[in-house]
């Protein structure tokens, strides 16, 4: 197992590129970054984050839930208020809109915790550090 440390983003990316071009399998390379570097993701490949589905489903659930709540509540006790229709869509859409944002955000946050595997019990127990420098760790490939 070899480890490399860098203070500089460009040099970190250069080495990462060289390692991948030199034939190291991306799954054997582990990196730590003090801040986000989108290029590292491009070099190591991998599928795009599926987080968008969590945001989408959260948002849709919020919208549907908002409409269902408002329509159910007025139909369960149908009384005309201020001459407005029982199912008054414009104000109900507003509730749906707000719940879209609320549930979409919470859905995305929950998805993030799930996908990024946080909170990480192992990291907390081992007191693993968030490094100040860029780190590349290359693990040796297991031979069958």
């Amino acid at each position, binding site marked *: 197992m070899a480890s490399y440390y860098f203070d500089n983003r460009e040099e970190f990316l250069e080495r990462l590129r060289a390692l991948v071009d030199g034939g190291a399998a991306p799954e054997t390379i582990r990196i730590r970054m*003090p801040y986000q570097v989108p290029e590292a993701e491009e070099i190591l490949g991998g599928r795009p984050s599926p987080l968008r589905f969590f945001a989408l489903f959260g948002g849709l659930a919020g919208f549907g839930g908002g409409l269902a709540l408002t329509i159910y509540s007025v139909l369960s006790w149908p009384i005309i208020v201020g001459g407005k229709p029982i199912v008054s869509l414009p104000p109900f859409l507003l509730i749906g809109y707000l719940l879209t944002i609320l549930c979409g955000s919470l859905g995305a946050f929950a998805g993030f915790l799930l996908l990024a*595997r946080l909170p*990480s019990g192992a990291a907390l127990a081992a007191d693993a550090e968030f490094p100040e420098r860029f780190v590349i760790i290359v693990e040796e490939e297991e031979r069958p």
Partner: protein
Amino acid sequence: MRPETLDNINASARVEEDVLAALGRPGWRYLAGVGLCALLALMLFTLWGGLIFRGLGLSGKNHPVGWAMLITNFVFWVGIAHSGTLISAVLFLFRARFRTSFNRSAEAMTIFALMVAGLFPLIHLGRVWVFYYLLPYPSERLIWPNFRSPLVWDVFAVTTYLIVSLVFFYVGMIPDLAVARRRLPGVRGRIYGLLSLGWQGTLRQWRHYGRLYLFLAAFATPLVASVHSIVSWDFAVSIVPGWHTTIFAPYFVAGAIFSGTAMVITLTIPMRRWLRLEPYITVDHFEAIAKILLFTSLIITYTYLVEHGLSLYGGNPFERDQYLYRALGDYRPLFAVMVICNSLLPLTMFIRRLRRSLAWLFILGILVNIGMWLERFVIITASLARDYDPYAWGSYNFSVVEFGITIGSFGLFFLLFLLFARLLPVLAVTEIKQGAEERHEEAGMQGASERGSEAYP
């Protein structure tokens, strides 16, 4: 000597040190400030207790002015919250670089302002213990809230805004909490470690983090426009002259961003000095924020003109008389101060020297917020005092209790902000490092070199 700025300081370790230095042992001035603000907050809760036990008669509210200073405070504080979201979410989507100097404190300001704002409808309720009637829950009485009422939209809007802002604030801080964990020893470091959820900065974590931050910014951006629009509909959906107008939503949103920006300036100028953050929050950054202040002030002035034009030329005698009463009646001194603070004084921001004068910006920030508070007061009170029927006209003067609660709300807000400045990283450390590195690269500067290959411990 050239002053240190983000462009020329040695980024990485220095940023961490400078920002986390604020988490050190506080001085006596800070403790005195916390003590004073805590006393003011205590006054708020004591006076609220008085209102609960003795009744709302202790306030100056009356017939016909049933919404007065407490609701003014609610609208004011919700407005203050807005520029936090503007700076953190909208400027993020527009990739405005100066945002990293302000976003953390602006986000904190949003949350604290919303917490303070949320108190006022509860205080105004009188019987606060039945506040849960506002929430939709399956009760044994089979009664649901009236979803056609703007007051119920308000509950949803403000609650959504608070929760989304909290998530955004916390998510933005996770890597910085991990930095605090690394740098601070002992129990405090462990607490920051727990709060950072064991963040290590792996590719997997950063990848999903980047997407999450983008989604949260995208979700929060429409809230900038919608929350204060909904607050404005509390008024505009009614038929009270002076309130019943379609211009209210954009008018309120512009006012909210205007007052919130002024509050960001008022808070960050002293914070920058006390925490020695001059290299990170420069005069250039303040100039950029002052331009937002000027822009929103011009929108406010425009809406004043449109509102008054509609009243005078709209052909509705009630609207015309209400406007004349607002500008020339019992509340005319307040109206005049409002116009001076919101429309005239911000014009000084056209002058570059004044835009870059922190002393003037600080004073202007306070004056703008006085003006914006008065705007809400004049809108709410004057319209209720004189609506259609002269037989039902009246007037309002606030009581000592309401005044004390208002002052106390500022105490509570500043108390929360002071605690934030000592307990959490006040600047976005990782974002500043990223921005500084990108600037270095753009400038063609070569940073430090690889230290070499070594065994991983």
